[in-house]
């Protein structure tokens, strides 16, 4: 298992380099222009000069090489400098965003906490709701609980988050006035009242995300449980006189986890890049919102860097999922 993990990690390096190249080419070839959202009153000659000052005058391969160099040499040396007070970077240029003209990693670091708190919470809550709902719905198939669960999760999944989000705002912020419609990103949690305030502003975005995630995961959980419930080994276990609890939670659940683990692992990287629509609806300054702004503004360095981090997480969590398969079902072997 360990050698497998190590080999996969080694393999990940060329994979990731290739992915970064593909993303870079994609951004190059896709139509768009970083000066597109400037007012039309700025004449074309000036726009051309701005483009050159952004480094767009250089040929493609030079820009890609520069980005790679910055990512793997300049940025780490800045972090080391910041940690140990050394001067490895010596004032060299970091990866600069087209839109903000500031280092890309500063913006990412600034937005990471809110992303993890809000989107992460939405995901965790979603998973925690989804698993029991999936298990109970499968165990009591076609019961009232199952029917209601199916109904809510299907409605929750088929109505897009931009609709549920706005509906919640209209009901709970405009009509009832319970929760703020705009997330205050400057709020510092220092005492009880500010904690309560933070909770209040998190309720709606977390709810929207949790509903969406729970809907999806619970469906896979239920389907997989149903598949296993009729297997021979379940009958055997029951015949041996095991309690229902042990049969369901130990045998069936463990064997049903493979698709669920896949889905959950696929969703975790999404937490880091955020939930674009939900963050935008509630004005949470997460990474998803930044990614959307950067794509709209054709801010190639920002999009490339965020996408690359996302790619690392995807490769990593898919590896974790593969390792978990082996734990859940020892018959799956990698050699």
């Amino acid at each position, binding site marked *: 298992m360990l050698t497998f993990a190590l080999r996969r990690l080694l393999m990940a390096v060329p994979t990731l380099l290739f*992915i970064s190249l593909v993303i870079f080419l994609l951004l190059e070839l896709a139509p768009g222009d970083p000066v597109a959202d400037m007012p039309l009153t700025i004449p074309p000659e000036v726009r051309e000069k701005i483009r050159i000052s952004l480094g767009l005058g250089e040929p493609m391969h030079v820009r890609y090489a520069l980005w790679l160099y910055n990512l793997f040499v300049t940025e780490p040396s800045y972090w080391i400098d910041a940690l140990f007070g050394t001067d490895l970077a010596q004032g060299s240029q970091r990866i600069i965003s087209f839109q903000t003209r500031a280092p890309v990693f500063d913006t990412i670091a600034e937005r990471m906490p809110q992303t993890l708190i809000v989107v992460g919470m939405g995901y965790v809550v979603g998973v925690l709701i989804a698993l029991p709902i999936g298990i109970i719905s499968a165990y009591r198939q076609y019961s009232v609980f199952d029917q209601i669960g199916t109904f809510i999760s299907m409605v929750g999944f*088929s*109505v897009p988050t931009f609709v549920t989000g706005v509906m919640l705002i209209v009901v709970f912020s405009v009509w009832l006035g319970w929760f703020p419609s705009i997330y205050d990103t400057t709020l510092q949690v220092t005492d009880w009242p500010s904690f309560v305030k933070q909770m209040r502003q998190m309720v709606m975005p977390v709810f929207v995300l949790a509903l969406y995630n729970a809907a999806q995961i619970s469906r896979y959980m239920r389907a997989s449980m149903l598949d296993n419930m*009729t*297997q021979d080994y379940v009958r055997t276990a029951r015949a041996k006189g095991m309690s229902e609890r042990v049969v369901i939670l130990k045998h069936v659940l463990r064997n049903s986890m493979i698709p669920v683990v896949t889905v959950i692992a696929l969703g975790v990287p999404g937490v880091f890049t955020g939930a674009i629509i939900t963050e935008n609806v509630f004005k949470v300054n997460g990474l998803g919102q930044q990614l959307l702004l950067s794509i709209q503004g054709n801010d190639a360095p920002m999009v490339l860097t965020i996408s*690359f981090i996302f790619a690392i997480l995807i490769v990593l969590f898919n590896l974790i999922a593969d390792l978990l398969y082996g734990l859940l079902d020892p018959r799956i072997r990698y050699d």
Partner: protein
Amino acid sequence: MTDLPDSLAAARPPRNQWWDVWDQFRSHKGALIGSVILALTLFSVLAGPWLWGVDPTFINIRMRDQPPSLAHPLGTDQLGRDMLARLFAGGQITIAVGMTAMALSILLGTLIGVLAGYFRRIDGPLMRLTDLFLALPLLPLLLLMVMLFREPLVGSFGPEGGIFALIVVAIGVTSWMQTARIVRGDVLALKEREFVLASRSIGTPARRMILRHILPNVMSPIMVSATLGVANAVITESALSFLGLGFPPDFPTWGRLLNDGLAYINLSPERVIWPAIALSALVLSINYIGDGLRDALDPRIRGR
């Protein structure tokens, strides 16, 4: 099946196994209701425009923002277009896009998942391909596809057909990855099961192994993916038209109706609610049909 009493076997004429499937499906209440709802939805979006006879793109400025009335059972929008007619017309496109894109994505996902799970040699490359597609930023990819292929496709299939093909392919090739990962995970576990080992030991060729033994056993996650895939395709389509990458702006898809209605949620919430209900009904009915099909196709449940 071998321990079936001979008398019983003799009493019933031999029949196609699909009849058994149908019998089981018929006895599934949810599936039946789902089929009826789906049939109704299909009937109304196909026959609705013909029966209702109002042009969904006809603008009557004087009748704008009307609440529901006899002339306009669902009211009118901000330009005075009849909402009912728009819902019907939108349904045709939405259902067609949702179903086709879902089918494409499930096909791709299942194919890649099964191949990767079953044949160890191509597992690595296929899963790295999956990683690549998962990591690609969707929006620039779609922009690029639209830029490269819109004109040639529109040129060869006409504005509607060309954009339909473009959108279906765009959604299909950007949403198969989850299915592929799930299917692969299940296949990895399945191929170590006793019945697979047994049939391999008698020399069953790979093709038959996959079709007869592997695929039927991964049907349930595929069914779930399919259900979720329809909703996903419809939402992606609405995001595309919102960004100007989808159908021309006067094509009323359900996603676009939702988007447009959202601005007027204070004034007339029904403009959001109706398309949302239509969409949920579609997805729910597909879900129940999927449930019924899954039960019906499972020989262990069938006949119990």
